[in-house]
């Protein structure tokens, strides 16, 4: 995984050489398809990606975990429902809830797996318009105090790709009100709600802010010339530099 040549420049390495020692696990389930891109994003941010297999029973010495997008188990039963019971997921759930509060990021199918795991509230159902949608999507960073958003400004708008069919975020009104009141709506769709998500919610966090899930794909907007045409094209990189700065900060 680490031998692919980089096309972009690993800008964060020069900024903070201490980041290179950080190890970010990237989980692969049967049917995962964005694990390579997620690992690449980790490397472009300046850290070391670590392959994690869903059937594994240990997280090793990783400092954070990314659960990438794709169609684990073909989305059979419900998106994320079968992956949620993979052996590695119980380790991730325990580590996320532990004192150490392992940072966990779920992207797209990874977000669906996190809701099925009850690490995040609510659920995703089919897009309200019933179609698969792929577009460059503007998001507003509503909370820049989570483990994965510290390098963004509060209220900053970023553009990253979005591609899903089961992306409509839903939860009951009480849960939605609590999420809003506690600042746990981390990302909101701006200008256009691509799937009918309640209150334009694109991503949320747990109460401690170490677990974040979102439907759009920051790992596809990390390399100049290969991301969205709107904005810099690399506006997803901040997710990965944020968690690295958090890890380095915690280890001071």
């Amino acid at each position: 995984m680490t031998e692919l040549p980089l096309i972009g420049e690993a800008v964060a390495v020069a900024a903070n050489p201490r980041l290179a020692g950080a190890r970010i696990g990237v989980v692969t389930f049967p049917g995962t398809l964005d694990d390579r891109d997620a690992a690449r994003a980790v490397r472009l941010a300046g850290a070391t990606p670590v392959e994690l297999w869903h059937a594994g029973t240990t997280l090793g010495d990783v400092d954070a975990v990314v659960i990438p997008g794709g169609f684990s188990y073909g989305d059979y039963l419900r998106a994320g429902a079968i992956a949620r019971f993979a052996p590695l997921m119980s380790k991730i759930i325990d580590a996320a809830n532990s004192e150490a509060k392992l940072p966990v990021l779920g992207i797209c199918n990874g977000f669906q797996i996190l809701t099925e795991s009850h690490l995040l509230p609510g659920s995703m159902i089919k897009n309200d318009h019933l179609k698969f949608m792929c577009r460059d999507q503007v998001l507003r960073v509503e909370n820049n105090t989570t483990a994965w958003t510290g390098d963004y400004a509060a209220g900053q708008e970023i553009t990253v790709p979005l591609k899903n069919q089961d992306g409509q975020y839903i939860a009951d009104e009480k849960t939605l009100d609590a999420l809003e009141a506690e600042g746990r709506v981390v990302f909101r769709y701006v200008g256009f709600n691509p799937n009918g998500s309640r209150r334009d919610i694109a991503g949320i966090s747990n109460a401690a802010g170490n677990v974040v899930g979102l439907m759009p794909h920051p790992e596809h907007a990390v390399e100049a010339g290969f991301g969205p045409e709107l904005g810099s094209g690399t506006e997803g990189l901040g997710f990965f530099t944020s968690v690295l700065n958090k890890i380095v900060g915690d280890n001071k």
Partner: protein
Amino acid sequence: MPRIVVDVMPKPEILDPQGKAIVGALPRLGFTAFSSVRQGKRFELTVDGEVTEEILAQARDAAETLLSNPVIEDVVNVEVVEA
């Protein structure tokens, strides 16, 4: 061999996008009597041998933990069907 049938439906308060698409298609085929459709799932769990209370309890447990997501769905029926 006996089977345990588990029926799962989207919660009533949740708009069912698939049901909405189906109700839109029905009148195009001349089926005009139906004002709404909700689409659920039926699972058939085959049991080798007799369905004991313990096995039925396992089926109910599986229905709540894996076969349905309580955030969006309800288990509306668990019953034994003899072959």
